[in-house]
């Protein structure tokens, strides 16, 4: 009875919250952007354009997961590529090599139903990614200090080295002959989520919306308040009787799970994975997108990812153009440009560009309406 009432209150709360949210300027802008994003596959099914939008949505999930951990819990991870990479590998492997089967007791053998559905491999990938992250996460989150940042970076670099190896060395090659972890080529020919680009687009779109809504809601909930308290004053939070280590590990797991989902989607989207995904450059991508939008604004990651993907694509096209390359040399290299942008953003606009951009937009809008 009581539970039922709680549930109804909660639903009513949500309705009221949604109504008040939609009347704010920020809510309206978000809704317009989401609708705009949703109708894109119905306007064009050009593979190139849809591909850019897939990348944008997957990067948004990834950047938001980093932003949640760094911005709201104050734990900086420089190896978020661990989650991306492990989840991508697990998803690619299970989708391609492990069929969906069940143990038939009457005949005592495995009965194969068909290929593993994408959503099982997605969740499995994210789950195993979290387990990998916890190897460094648990010991370093027990302590104050910079251990998580460099511990995760070390983990991602070492996973890169290991996945790159052609065999597991002389000691283990008798047990596991051949290239066990698929070597530098990685796993290829992973079937996509759906052959229909529109369905695939909408599935990724819905996953992105769910992840963003979940994170936005989480940081506003009571748990989110504890996270922010840990970020602002860890000693004080501990003194008020909260087990900070537990909450830090929970936050790390949530962040890793969402980053893992991004990694799984990535391997399904580009139909394969190789060890390059563990390079620090991918962790850097997440950080740069979150920082452009503004650290500690979950929705800022979407703006950051949008700028990152489209500016990156523009720079890549510029770099391919022989007329321009002669004059500017290699300086249109996307990573080079983005490392400068990141330095400038952190140095001069630490709170990102989402908030100022929204304010400017509102001013313009008010001007248009003649208020």
């Amino acid at each position, binding site marked *: 009875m009581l539970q039922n009432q709680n549930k109804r209150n909660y639903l009513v709360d949500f309705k009221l919250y949604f109504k008040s949210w939609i009347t704010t300027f920020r809510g309206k802008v978000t809704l317009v952007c989401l609708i705009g994003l949703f109708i894109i596959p119905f306007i064009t099914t050009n593979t190139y354009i849809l591909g850019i939008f897939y990348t944008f949505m997957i990067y948004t999930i990834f950047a938001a997961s980093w932003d949640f951990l760094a911005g709201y819990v104050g734990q900086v991870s420089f190896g978020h590529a661990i989650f991306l990479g492990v989840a991508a590998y697990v998803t690619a492997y299970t989708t391609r090599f492990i069929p969906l089967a069940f143990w038939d007791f009457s005949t005592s053998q495995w009965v194969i139903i068909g290929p593993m559905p994408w959503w099982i491999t997605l969740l499995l990938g994210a789950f195993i990614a979290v387990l990998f992250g916890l190897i460094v996460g648990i010991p370093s989150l*027990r302590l104050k200090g910079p251990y998580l940042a460099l511990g995760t970076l070390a983990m991602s670099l070492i996973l890169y080295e290991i996945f790159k190896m052609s065999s597991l060395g002389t000691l283990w090659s008798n047990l596991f002959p051949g290239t066990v972890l698929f070597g530098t080529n990685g796993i290829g020919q992973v079937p996509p989520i759906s052959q229909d680009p529109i369905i695939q687009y909408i599935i990724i779109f819905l996953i992105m919306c769910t992840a963003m809504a979940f994170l936005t809601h989480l940081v506003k909930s009571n748990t989110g308040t504890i996270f922010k308290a840990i970020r602002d004053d860890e000693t004080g939070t501990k003194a008020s009787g909260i087990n900070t280590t537990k909450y830090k590990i929970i936050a790390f797991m949530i962040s890793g799970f969402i980053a893992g989902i991004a990694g799984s989607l990535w391997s399904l989207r580009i139909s394969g994975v190789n060890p390059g995904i563990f390079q620090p450059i991918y962790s850097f991508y997440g950080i740069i997108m979150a920082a452009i939008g503004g650290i500690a604004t979950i929705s800022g990651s979407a703006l950051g990812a949008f700028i990152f993907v489209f500016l990156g694509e523009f720079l890549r096209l510029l770099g391919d153009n022989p007329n321009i390359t002669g004059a500017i040399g290699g300086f249109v290299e996307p990573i080079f440009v983005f490392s400068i942008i990141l330095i400038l953003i952190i140095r001069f606009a630490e709170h990102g560009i989402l908030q100022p951009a929204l304010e400017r937009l509102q001013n313009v809008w008010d001007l248009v309406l003649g208020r």
Partner: protein
Amino acid sequence: MNVNLIEELLSFIISGAIQGSIYSLLALGFSLVYGVGGILNQAHGAFYVIATYLMYVFIKDVAGLGFILGIIFGLGITTIIGGLMYLLLIKPLKESHVGVVIVTFAFAFFIEQIVGILVDKIYHKIPDYFLYFGVDPEYFTVLGVDIQYQSLIIIIVAIVLVVLTTIFIKKSKLGKSIRAVAQDSEAAELMGINVDKILAYTLMISAFLAGVAAIINGPLGTVAPHIGWPILINSFAIVVLGGLGSLPGSVIGAFILAFASKFTDSFIDPIFGALIPIVVIVVMLVIRPRGLFGKKEIK
């Protein structure tokens, strides 16, 4: 069989000592910066990259004087970049802890990309310095093991620099100010010490040590834009082993890590050699987070 074992042991000891010397210079600077300013310098490997590339470019392009110019410019520019990085990037962000680590991380990428653009992105080798000056053969043989003169230089330079740095920190006026800032930066500031100046000097010392490590290790290592990352990870593993901010700890930790990874490389399996840094980090964080020589932190 017996002779073989002696040869193997000798070459293991020598390679471990070389690696340990290089690591100790790198970890010393990394630990100093963390101990004095609480700054986690993600761009520590970038100093190494800058010095390596300057040395490579000068030796390749300038005939005759290339070696001397490489040393002068390699060390000079690296040291200056260390100081400038503090003044322009770290100092304005000192209040926000997240800002400092991100900005140094971005700076490391900036250096990685700019050397790739200005030079190129493929692997190179710096020629052996002794061969460059016409000393041929560039090695001598002890008990059937070829020892390069270069490795003796590495060990001697590392020992001299570690001793000099320790004396400098203990005895000189600047060293005393550095220790004062490390103990309590606010009190040091009240005593009239310019904390920002001290921190800039500390970063310059750290960059200088990384530059020296890069130059003496030059012919034995490779030249590629991404070589800074393993340097950073190994430095971190060493200071976790020795204790964050402890200088003797980082030297001893450097030799322990070097011998451990060389041992697994040559006697067990290279795959475990690659795993050593992460194993060291995780094990130390679980059993003794303050490291072998770190002070117990009062919370």
